[in-house]
């Protein structure tokens, strides 16, 4: 069997699965080709924390053996990567943190388990903002990730490692997590597709918690069709996560053929107010025009409390974070300070040495807002506003099928540009946070370029409307080539 290994890396999940199934190339050939690409390019991107070459080849061989059987799973032999927040048995799972720098998970996350069962081959664990706290992948104990479109720029975050790897064609797809935009924003900034499902659609078991009521696992791919295929593999009820929802999982790929005629698309005027880069605004308007020409109606909708979403998020998320981070105490696993004098010293130094600045900032903020005397004014009030934001979306979805707009206010920004200004950094998630607070599914799709940097179109749907937003994204991609554009140097 002879294939042009140089051509495999640009193929999508769907194409690769077909190629293996049809015997065009083997899973081993594919895996070797991509491992070589990773080895050649990771140094300049720093997208990976761990590369699991040996295990990948074993899994690829198993996939090749399975191919001979009639019951080969749907993603048999397809290479993927996991954000280093997903627990992987026997493999380092660092969450981008020094405090878990030595942590080898004794079990697999549900997402990992299900993708493995679907035949996917894990190539490695990707870099990320520490514990998913950040929007630039600069808050990693393992160094920042470079954006393949411009190595001086950030790929966004926190799932920046997966986004960069997928954009650079090192791997066709990978997992991410999205607490305030951590899948959609890096997808927008790297010209990839990022899907955040409905809260509860995908199990959180084995996904190390940042803010439990907001965290949701999802995928980063190059096409909506691939995102549909992967979501089908990871979605569904899991008895190990009480917040996962027992709701039927449709065949998302089969749902991709619907025309956009009579589709009602909601446009939120505030999304296009000041703060949005004019070029990004123009690209998003172009994209909406493409959808309109397909028969979709563009309808203005109002989300009156949307402006409160960032401050609300920065009360709720740090509050949950401060509690979730407490288990990292140097007692049972992870980093432990040397020669502690006493228990307090053990705690203070293990955590002081183990956590980075952003995590500490959020632990302190969260501890403050939950404190006696402040709880009502901050946490309780934020929960009430959160309810209002959810109601705003519910009201809007009475009139429209989906809400469309920009994913991020600007294209990729320079590494180091916002690191000293957390508030500006937080505002990067201004368009994405609402979907997390309301638990809604959202997707970012590449819709053009601003000064040669990718721009993303975001689609947000009602609860469990993944099929709908995937279909719209897919229909858009049938008419556009933005997602097929490869960053220079990674062709």
């Amino acid at each position, binding site marked *: 069997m002879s294939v042009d290994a140089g051509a495999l890396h640009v193929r999508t999940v769907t194409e690769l699965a077909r190629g293996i199934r049809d015997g065009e190339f083997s899973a081993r050939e594919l895996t070797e080709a991509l491992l070589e690409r990773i080895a050649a390019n990771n140094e300049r991107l720093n997208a990976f924390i761990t590369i699991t070459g040996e295990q990948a080849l074993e899994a690829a061989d198993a996939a090749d053996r399975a191919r001979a059987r009639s019951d080969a799973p749907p993603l048999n032999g397809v290479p993927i990567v996991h954000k280093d927040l997903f627990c992987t048995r026997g493999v380092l799972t660092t969450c981008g943190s020094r405090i878990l720098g030595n942590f080898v998970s*004794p079990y697999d996350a549900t997402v990992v388990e299900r993708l493995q069962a679907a035949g996917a081959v894990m190539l490695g664990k990707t870099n990320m903002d520490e514990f998913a706290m950040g929007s630039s992948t600069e808050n990693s104990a393992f160094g920042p990730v470079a954006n393949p479109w411009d190595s001086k720029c950030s790929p966004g975050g926190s799932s920046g490692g997966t986004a960069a790897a997928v954009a650079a064609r090192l791997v066709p797809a990978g997992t991410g997590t999205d607490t305030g935009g951590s899948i959609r924003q890096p997808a927008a900034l790297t010209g990839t597709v990022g899907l955040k499902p409905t809260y509860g659609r995908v199990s959180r078991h084995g996904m190390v918690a940042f803010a439990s009521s907001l965290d949701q696992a999802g995928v980063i791919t190059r096409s909506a069709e691939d995102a549909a295929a992967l979501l089908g593999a990871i979605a569904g009820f899991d008895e*190990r996560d*009480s*917040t996962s929802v027992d709701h039927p999982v449709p065949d998302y790929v089969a749902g991709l053929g619907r025309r956009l005629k009579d589709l009602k698309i909601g446009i939120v005027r505030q999304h296009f107010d000041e703060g949005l880069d004019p070029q990004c605004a123009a690209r998003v308007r172009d994209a909406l025009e493409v959808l309109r020409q397909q028969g979709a109606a563009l309808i203005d909708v109002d989300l009156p409390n949307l402006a409160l979403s960032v401050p609300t998020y920065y009360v709720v998320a740090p509050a949950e974070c401060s509690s979730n*981070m*407490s288990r990292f105490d140097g007692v049972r696993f992870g980093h432990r300070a040397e020669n502690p004098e006493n228990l307090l010293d053990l705690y203070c130094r293990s955590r002081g040495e183990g956590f980075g600045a952003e995590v500490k900032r959020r632990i302190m903020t969260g501890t403050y807002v939950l404190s*006696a005397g402040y*709880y009502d004014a901050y946490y309780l009030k934020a929960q009430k506003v959160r309810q209002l934001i959810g109601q705003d979306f519910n009201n809007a979805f009475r009139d429209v099928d989906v809400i469309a707009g920009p994913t991020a206010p600007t294209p990729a920004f320079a590494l180091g540009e916002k690191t000293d200004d957390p508030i500006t950094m937080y505002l990067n998630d201004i368009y994405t946070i609402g979907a997390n607070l309301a638990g809604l599914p959202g997707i970012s799709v590449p819709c053009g370029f601003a000064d040669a940097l990718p721009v993303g179109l975001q689609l947000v749907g009602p609860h469990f409307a993944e099929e709908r937003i995937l279909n719209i994204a897919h229909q858009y991609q049938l008419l556009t080539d933005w997602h097929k554009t490869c960053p220079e140097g990674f062709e």
Partner: protein
Amino acid sequence: MSDWEAVIGLEIHTQLATVSKIFSGAPTAYGAEPNAQASLIDLGYPGVLPVLNFEAVRMACKFGLAVKATIAPRSIFARKNYFYPDLPKGYQISQYELPIVSQGELIILDSEGREKRIGITRAHLEEDAGKSVHAGLAEYTGIDLNRAGTPLLEIVSDPDLRSAKEAVAYMRKVHTLVRYLEISDGNMQEGSFRCDANVSIRPRGQQALGTRTELKNLNSFRFVEKAINFEIERQSEVLEVGGTVIQETRLYDADLDETRVMRSKEEANDYRYFPDPDLLPVVIDEAFIREVGDGLPELPDAKRQRFVSQYQLKPADADTLTVSRGVADYFETVAADSAARLAANWIIGDLSAALNREGLDIGASRIPPGALAGLLQRIDDNTISGKMAKEVFEAMWSGEGSADDIIEARGLRQITDTAAIESVVEAVIRANPNQVAAYQGGKEKLLGYFVGQVMKETRGKANPAEVNRILKKQLHS
């Protein structure tokens, strides 16, 4: 010296008798190798999530219904945040604002034997922490997380208790109840039933409450009584010299029989409670409450009252016999086939003594209830005397067989045949003319001598009442 009144409230932690833990599938059995019964969830590993064991909810509902409380249609688990090495997640999952059980009550008997209502503020579900282990470790503290995640029901009383004795009476009542409901084994040695006490004092007649202290580590009824009494005494000494009681947590030291400061109010943790986002609200509907209610056993108070009316027992005896379902069931089985009062006396007397002697639970009694009834029937029908019965009881305890077998084998059958006794009496009178003359001359104390002679002749088997009656009749004739 002022006349002080104590105001006491108890927080009882009772371990629920579920097979597995409240948020993981690990077993709850006591006494395993350290950390052998801790799953990744109990260890607080990254990424794992709690999943509620609904059996704990059912047990909490049983308790709630038994104390006539309100069962919340929707209750919430909250995180109580603090750092401690035996608390793996850095927070304990508990219930705070919306507990599953609220507004209940129990009736106790106060020092004058009058019924007194003790309010139950709330009872909430929570997970237990692990244990720190110091023994045998020189420079380190060991952590055993077997107990981490064990379900607890924390039962909080209103401050309705006015003395250490009342506190103990209330605690015993709760202890009896949780075992009746079979929601806890109540084993205090293993820590399945433990208690903290909030104690304050005030001048009798004053409405306002004094400053309270919280006493920790009260793991026996005796310690509860001693610790509270010590604390009442300590507080009154402080106040009588013009001092003020400081709000603080105090630890009871059983060896020294004193309480001492553990932490002051200033050092108290701010637990930063908030709803646990990993768990959904616990929703309980009417049908479930009805189902649990229908499955409740007869409760101790109802049973005690029934014993008094149905079996004509003294209230104190009925109280003793309803201390556990095991004892009550044993009694009722015996009483079904023998005289109830006699059954009560024997169970409270000889049987309890024998069980205590060997540290056995009534369920493990060497004499099953049916066999005891067999013995009591022989007393009742005068086959044997009470004194003989004690001998038979001991033989039965040693496994020599049924009462009838032992009576037969040892020839213990009592002589109740009047004619047989009369002939022995006649022979004794004939053989002792001098004593007969003395008796008839007024030395009536000699009757005992004659009884002794008759018993000697019959080798103790003659019915004593009958011997007395016949002797008197013949000596006076």
